[in-house]
């Protein structure tokens, strides 16, 4: 167990290190004109050189890289090129928004997906099963940005035209400003993200439940006269949860790095939107900071998933 953890953490650092190298290399190859942009159109070459020097851009790449890694190991990810704000501060202010979005949506999609999956699996080939399967495939096939725009059109625009302003067009209200406005701003993004993701869980739960409900011990439980509801939930669902937990961990991990599309459609200034803005401005420190954080979230989620696996399924041995 301990050996397993050490190996996974080591692998995680390897991943993060490779990503810093890749992103650094990438932006070195690219024509870098940040200093020129910052200096303005009228700037003399001297001004540009001064700015370049201030940002450390005149240093050889290997030195810039070593400085970055050295600082990063001390928890310092540098400063953004444009306003000299620490990258950690930028990450810190964007993270709560992404967290609110991801966890709210995750709660919804897990509930929706598992509920529908269980209903489908206990009534295989029924009308309900077929409709739920069709519906989940429909949402699974819908691109996130399309669903977001459609929800905005119907639930914001049409509803507002009709005289009921239930949801804002976008933006974010901090949690500290009250639960109501916070949730109101997030309902549409939550559903956008949840409906697209729930499909995977419906199908996963259905398949996994069907497998489990065909097992001998479930028949045994039934033959002992245990009620159907209890058989399904206690004996069936519990054993069927393992693949769902795996998928959940991976999804939450990869979404924490920024829900790029949903945040863009609903103008939520979370990590994803911040990353897009930084990419458009070639703000390298911010890009690296967010990409690193995103990769770290995936790595940590994967480790947690493997641990959860061992806890849920005693047959799994970690080595």
């Amino acid at each position: 167990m301990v050996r397993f953890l050490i190996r996974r953490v080591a692998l995680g650092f390897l991943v993060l290190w490779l990503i810093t190298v890749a992103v650094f290399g990438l932006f070195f190859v690219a024509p870098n004109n940040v200093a020129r942009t910052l200096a303005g159109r009228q700037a003399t070459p001297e001004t540009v050189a001064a700015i370049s020097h201030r940002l450390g851009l005149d240093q050889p790449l290997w030195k810039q890289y070593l400085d970055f890694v050295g600082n990063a190991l001390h928890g310092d990810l540098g400063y953004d090129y444009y306003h000299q704000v620490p990258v950690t501060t930028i990450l810190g202010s964007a993270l709560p928004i992404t967290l609110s979005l991801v966890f709210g949506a995750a709660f919804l999609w897990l509930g929706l997906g598992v509920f529908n999956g269980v209903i489908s699996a206990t009534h295989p080939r029924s009308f309900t099963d077929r409709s739920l399967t069709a519906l989940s495939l429909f949402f699974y096939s819908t691109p996130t940005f399309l669903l977001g725009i459609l929800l905005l059109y119907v639930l914001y625009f049409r509803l507002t035209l009709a005289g009921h302003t239930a949801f804002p067009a976008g933006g974010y209200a901090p949690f500290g400003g009250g639960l109501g406005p916070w949730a109101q701003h997030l309902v549409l993004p939550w559903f956008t993200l949840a409906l697209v993701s729930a499909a995977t869980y419906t199908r996963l739960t259905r398949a996994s439940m069907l497998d489990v409900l065909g097992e001998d011990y479930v028949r045994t439980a039934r033959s002992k006269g245990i009620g159907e509801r209890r058989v399904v939930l206690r004996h069936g669902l519990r054993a069927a949860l393992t693949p769902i937990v795996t998928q959940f961990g991976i999804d939450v991990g990869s979404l924490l790095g920024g829900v790029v599309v949903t945040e863009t459609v609903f103008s939520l200034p979370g990590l994803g939107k911040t990353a897009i803005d930084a990419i458009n401005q070639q703000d390298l420190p911010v890009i690296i900071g967010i990409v690193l954080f995103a990769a770290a979230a995936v790595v940590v989620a994967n480790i947690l998933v493997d641990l959860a696996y061992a806890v849920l399924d005693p047959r799994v041995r970690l080595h």
Partner: protein
Amino acid sequence: MSDTADVVAVMSPSGPESDPHATTRPTAAKGIEGRTPWQLAWQRLRRDRVAMVSLVVIGLIVLMAIAAPLAALVTGHPVNEQYRTIGLTPDGLPRGPSSEFWLGTDDLGRDILVRIAYGARISLLVGVASTILTVVIGVVIGLAAGFLGGAVDTVLARLIDVVLSVPFLLVAIALVSITGPSLIVTVLVIGFFSWASVARIVRGQVLSMREREFVEAARSLGASNSRIMFVDILPNVLAPVIVYASLLIPVVIVVEATLSFLGLGLAPPTADWGGMISEAQTYYTTSWWFVVFPGAALLITTLAFNLLGDGIRDAFDPRSERLMAK
């Protein structure tokens, strides 16, 4: 890919177990035909009405892509022609569907119908090309890792882990923003970050096959490693790869549309569904057709591919749907 759901988990990559050398035997008795697993799968697929309808829909979309110039010819509206006077309202807003513009016009007064037809080319091209690239890289690396084993396997397996942890969409966006958007860059970026799942599936299958008798037989006949890998083992691991690939096409189409939507698609004025929806975003309050028609085209395409992919999976793995007698 952070926003697109992962297809790995929805599918059960367990292909037919029988090996093709045994199935091509001559018929044992009259009336009983020997069928390869491929023929069996195709037969099952043909009986699947939903899959067949999806196949027809996909055929129509392909036809639309090929015949895109025809759409321009029939309507008399070239794809990038801006009709500033007849195609826009006096306020400069897009015009709705009419006898002149069947599906309305966009913000520059261009014919949406013609642009949708041309956009199909991009979606299909990127969808198929990226999927082929993904599968080729994934199969080669998966075969090498599973068959050669040892140090090769250790390195490749770690590489697979690394690529699977990369925040795909972010890095893809960063990459495209540096190289500048183009068809080739989009295909390469998608292929480069998606092969790892294929490689993992193939590696697993190869590991279970490496010690089988037919591999030993091939080796005792003096077959080289590459011959055993590509001639003897590859056909046996193809079924799950084909299932995965068929479900990957719609995912790739969505990724391409997403990149365009985020402004990293092909440079304007190229007609592209994701880009059209992105332009339509600011007009959704005044011009519903601008977002609805390209959106519908995109949705119908991904839905058809997903339904077909589901059918292909069931055809190769009949167990997954039928083993549920309660």
